[in-house]
């Protein structure tokens, strides 16, 4: 567990994901006051059945998304290290999606701006429900100067890795 003062990071143990999507439900309820899977800042992908996993921002050390934004709509939270979106400034150009090594940011399905995990200002709802359920796929840890961008991988890349880890080489046929 973490103390309140320090910035956090959400550690992830993807192979344990049950695909219950309670993280999506909690995230979209918190941010949108609706159950809204595609508006959730954390989304569970399942291109290969059984190999479900959550996909969300890793807060890369060099924040390529923030650098790529042409209108300064993205900033870095001093408190949490999360990428914050100024929704009014965002022009929904998608440059941050292209800049992200994991193609994590995505448009809000109904509004003209990007959505990115904001770490719920330090107490992420997704982690809470994942822990409550005992899955422990998501855990909050102290943020250190580490290459978290390693975790910024596309859903296709992650799905392939997990599916092969689970099912072996025959998984190539399923992707």
């Amino acid at each position, binding site marked *: 567990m973490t103390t309140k003062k320090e910035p956090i990071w959400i550690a992830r143990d993807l192979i344990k994901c049950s695909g219950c999507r309670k993280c999506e439900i909690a995230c979209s309820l918190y941010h949108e006051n*609706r159950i809204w899977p*595609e508006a959730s800042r954390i989304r569970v992908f399942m291109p290969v059945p059984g190999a479900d996993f959550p996909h969300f921002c890793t807060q890369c050390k060099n924040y390529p998304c923030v650098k790529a934004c042409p209108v300064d709509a993205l900033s870095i939270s001093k408190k949490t290290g999360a990428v914050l979106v100024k929704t009014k400034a965002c022009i929904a150009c998608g440059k941050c999606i292209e800049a992200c090594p994991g193609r994590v940011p995505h*448009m809000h399905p*109904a509004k003209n701006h990007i959505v990115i995990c904001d770490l719920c200002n330090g107490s992420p709802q997704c982690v809470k429900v994942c822990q409550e359920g005992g899955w422990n796929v998501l855990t909050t840890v102290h943020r250190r100067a580490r290459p978290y961008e390693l975790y910024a991988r596309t859903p296709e890349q992650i799905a392939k890795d997990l599916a092969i880890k689970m099912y072996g080489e025959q998984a190539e046929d399923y992707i």
Partner: protein
Amino acid sequence: MIKGYAGKILEVNLSTQAIKDIKIGDNILKDYIGGRGLATKILWDRLGKKWEKIDPLKSENILLFLTGPLTGYYPGGRICVSGKSPQSNGVIGSTVAGEFGVELRCACYDGIIVTGESNKPVYLFIKDSDVDIRDASHIWGKDAKQTMATLGRECRELLRKRYPKFGQLKEPSFLYVGPAGENKVRTAVVAAKWTHAAGYGGYGAVMGSKKLKAIAVKGTGPLPKAANIKEVKRLIKVVNDNIYENVLWRRWGTGSGGYEVGAETSSEPVRNWQDEWHNEKSFGVDQFENRVWIKQSWSDFGCPTCCLKVAMIKTGRFKGAITDNPDYEMQAYLGPNLGLFTPEENVFLSSLADDLGLCGIQTGNVMGFAAELFQRGILTKKDLDGIEPKWGDVEAFAALAKKIAYREGIGDLLAEGTYRAALKIGEKKKTDVLKYAVQSKGISIGAHGIRSGKDYPESISYACSVQGGDHTSTAGLPLDGSGSELSEIFNDSGVHCNFNVFGVPRKVKFDFYKAVTGIELTQKEWYKIKAFRILQIQRALLLLGGPDIKWKPKTHDENPPRFYEPLPSGPYKGKTVDKMQVEEDKRRYYNAVGWDENGIPKTKTLEKLGLEDIDKVLKKSCISKSMLK
């Protein structure tokens, strides 16, 4: 408009390729909710007057995929598949877990009605309000995993084109049929996620008869707005907190049943129910856990239980087989029922059933039936195209399953399901083989026997159910009991998983309904009027039946003959079902549900529920007259 609904249903006519949105009136939604209830109402309204003449496997049947207002809100998302059943000739509310119902509601549809039939294989692709009927020739004939991989790639690409600026959308959800559905096998399922199935009812065959290989759906919107989201949040937590206490299902799913239901309660099908007891420790849950489970918890939308496991065989002759769990029903029917007692054989057959799109319960039942006829010398090796289904011969059963899925040789006969196959074999062999058919009204009995009296079904659970042998919707008294059919109609109409109501105070799901829809629904109103009305329509349509088979309550509101044979071994050896008790229970049940002594809903019962039109059709029908004899 009532809160919690998208407010429209997609109707697709595959004969004319016409696509339209239809609206269902608020009063109908209030009375029938969604899923099973609404399906029953739609089917009665559209097909009721000509019901007896409707062939379930011809274009005149309609196929329904319906959510309910609780889908996606109540933890454990499902969707209900329905239509005129090619098994019972009535209506079955057959639900399948997964994200499909949630995606559909996020695409702003409460359901899909499919009418007519296509002249070539097609699949539907719903992207919010865009709906395409697309060619499926390239996936026709493909198994579950090939179908999902091919469609997955294709649909993800189409989504990229449809939403070029969104970024990465999640994959769409799919429902599909395997080769068995395409070949109109009556035990074919509508499947999802490789391993999930709407099995009871045989709607895979209906989908196949319409040449509809699959439906893909991507909804980018939110769930339809709930009346009181704050209360919904509270109730989700109440359900979760209660379910998190259910250590047994969370840890083992129903996978501990394969051994326990046989060894402890003597209610597991063993060798086509010739026994219900076994003590084969090789089939213990520890063996499944240590040898085949590769993922401890696998789940569907919002589910706190996560009863599923992913199982895979990594070495040996069954290498490469993947399935979920298997859960208890698959363990029993593709295990002891065929004389098989190892996890590897069980996973292999379960995976094969998934791939072919066969219902593991009902295909396991019909294969067990064939194996018993072989054991008794009624069916010979020649009759069975050279296959010798000896108990425990996994290769023989795999060969038989393939024959069934492709309707080849003996498979064509067994593909009719146990009851219809029994009629045909009996005629051909000039001997009564119905006594070996363990089914009720064309639907195989779920893997929970009643002879020991130690499991949950009662003496008339299957005999009087409007869904025949369906172990998830059993008849019993009191009518407002938590295990009664009227309680199950709530879950199937809601539409959400019935596992997430166990251990949760009953009040919660009614509170949930109010929080989502804004409408107060009292338990009294549900049990005395609304669910009761749905039950009566299901009963009426079941009795109208046809065209190939009609059920007479006197003959068919009955247990399979096997349940009157004493259990041959185990701690409950000698126990059987008392026929006098069944008659007495049936009388009490008929009385409670307002049916006359012949099992026909009374005019008074139907009129009180505003079902005068149904009463007229039912009473005019030839079945009523013949049933009085």
